[in-house]
Structures are given as structure tokens and as C-alpha cells.
């Protein structure tokens, strides 16, 4: 009985958050082989801790934080071993929006991370500042610079009025 509950819990967590975790791993590591390994390791950590949360939003923010920390550790480790094998170009080739994705992945790590959390996950700059433990003003600056870089590729007007 307990085993079934545990297995259901694992399945639910993976179904619900694997896409977000995978995207973040790709964004950080820029290598889909490493990202796939990282996803498995992150979920082991998540299940191991499995804290209780008052809301799904809170839970998701925690999972994002765990993923980011894990990816940072991988990057730190890789720095000492060898340069990261960036195999992203071949990975994005199959996508319809490959130009946009490639230009996002060409951004510095902090910028592309903020772009993902803001545009895809829908977090406000204040929420991102809590997650990344940076000042709100810093997040806004990163976002603005990222948008300026992306504007050349993507074009179009800004959709954000409050920035």
C-alpha cells in the first residue's frame, strides 16, 4: 500500500515537473546528454527530500531552485575537468523555432535563465529575484539586455509594460 502511494507520487512528480526540469538543465548545461543525466539526478534529490509545501507554486519554485543548484554544481565540476561539449546546435536543428532557440542559447547563462523564467514560466522579476537570490534591479537589467540582444533576431515590440 505504502509502496503504491510512493510509486504514484514519483510518477506524478515526474509527469508534472520533468519538462520544466529538463528545459532548465538544457538552458544551463547546453548539452542534451548532460541534461538527461542531470534530470535523473535532480529527481532523485527531489524524491529524497520530498518536503511538504503549502502550494504548487511554492513547490515548483523549490524544484526550480534545486535544479538550478544541481546544474551549477555540474558546471563547477566540469570546469575543473574539461570544457563542456556544446552539442546544442545539432539538438535545436530539428525545431521549428531553431533560430530563436539558438539565439537564446547564445546569450550568457544568467540572461537565458532569466528569459526562460520570465517568458516561459511566467514569473515576475521580483519572484525571479527571490529564486535566484539576486536583486530585482539586477534581474530587470539582465532581462532588458537579453531582450535587446534577442530583438535583432526575433524583432517585434516588447510585450511588457512594467519593465
Amino acid at each position: 500500500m505504502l509502496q503504491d502511494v510512493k510509486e504514484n507520487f514519483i510518477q506524478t512528480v515526474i509527469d508534472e515537473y520533468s519538462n520544466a526540469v529538463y528545459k532548465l538543465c538544457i538552458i544551463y548545461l547546453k548539452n542534451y546528454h548532460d541534461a538527461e543525466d542531470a534530470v535523473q539526478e535532480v529527481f532523485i534529490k527531489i524524491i529524497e527530500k520530498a518536503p511538504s509545501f503549502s502550494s504548487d507554486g511554492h513547490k515548483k519554485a523549490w524544484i526550480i531552485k534545486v535544479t538550478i543548484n544541481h546544474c551549477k554544481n555540474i558546471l563547477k565540476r566540469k570546469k575543473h575537468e574539461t570544457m563542456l561539449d556544446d552539442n546544442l546546435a545539432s539538438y535545436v536543428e530539428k525545431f521549428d523555432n531553431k533560430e530563436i532557440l539558438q539565439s537564446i542559447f547564445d546569450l550568457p547563462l544568467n540572461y537565458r535563465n532569466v528569459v526562460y523564467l520570465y517568458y516561459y514560466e511566467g514569473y515576475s522579476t521580483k519572484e525571479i529575484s527571490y529564486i535566484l537570490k539576486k536583486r530585482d534591479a539586477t534581474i530587470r537589467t539582465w532581462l532588458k539586455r537579453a531582450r535587446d540582444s534577442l530583438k535583432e533576431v526575433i524583432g517585434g515590440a516588447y510585450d511588457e509594460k512594467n519593465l
Partner: protein
Amino acid sequence: MMKKIYDAFDEIKVSEELKMKTYYKIKNSKLCSKPVKNKYRMFVYSSVAVFCLVLTIFIKGDFSAPHGNDGEVMDMFFINEAGEESLDRIVYRGGTYIFIEEVFDKNILDEKIGVMDQISGASLNSESNSAKYYGSYIYKVKNVDSLEKIAIMLEDKIFLFEKTVDYNGIR
């Protein structure tokens, strides 16, 4: 711009194969204990459970302070199976607390749970309405049952703990 970026990110999807691989990796890891297969194992597990229950009752009876909020930290750190010191679990007079999450700063805690309250009967630190033990600040979290949740400040980080009576890590 927003929609284009959203659509681009939306194309990145985790494969079903990776999801299954992840699932089986977790399932086969030590984290997921195997089902009890025979009566002997059942007997051993039951004995451990009863022992833990008795131990819990004994410790609660022995150490419970007359006032719920009164007490001191018995052990700041919990030594996990790997022999590493961690903040996963602490023992506070009258109960065991399991680590829930790290709170990024005091403002967030204030927003989400309510203003932290001092633990009454504890010695006060002049700068903060907290009890101070072993260099840590311990707060009772307001708006929850007495001592159900506590917050501990360690090196400018706030850690939330939830009360448990279980010593096996099963919640």
C-alpha cells in the same frame, strides 16, 4: 516577442523514454524501499516500528516541558545514514522536527507564514525577538499550532522545520 520566445521554449520537451528511465532509476534506488516479501521481514519491520513508537512515547514523556514553548535545543544537527552532518532533522525539547525548506529571507517568511514570534520563556537576544542557542536563532512560527513549526536562522539563512513524532523518516 513574448509569444515567440514561449513557443520556442515550448518545443523543448522531455522524451517519454527519459521519463521512464528516471522513474525506474528512482524506483531501483535505495530511496524506494522494496516491498516486504516474507513474514520474517514483516516481523522485523513491525518490531522496529513498535520500538520507535515506544522510544517516541518515552522521549516525549521524559522531556516535555510543562509549558509547550519552553525548552532548549537538544541536538542541533542530525547525523544521516551516510554519516554526514545535516540540518535535515533537529530535536527540540518535546519533539523532533523535520526540515521542510530553506526560506530565502525573512521577508518571504513574513509574507507566507506570518510574523515570526519569539519562543516564550526562552532567553532573549537583545537584537532580535528570538531565542539564541548555539549561535542560532529559533523562532516559533505564528499562526500555526504551538510548536508545530519552527524556524531556525543559521548564517543568515532561515530553515523551516515541521514537527514530527516519527523517527524513521516516514512522514
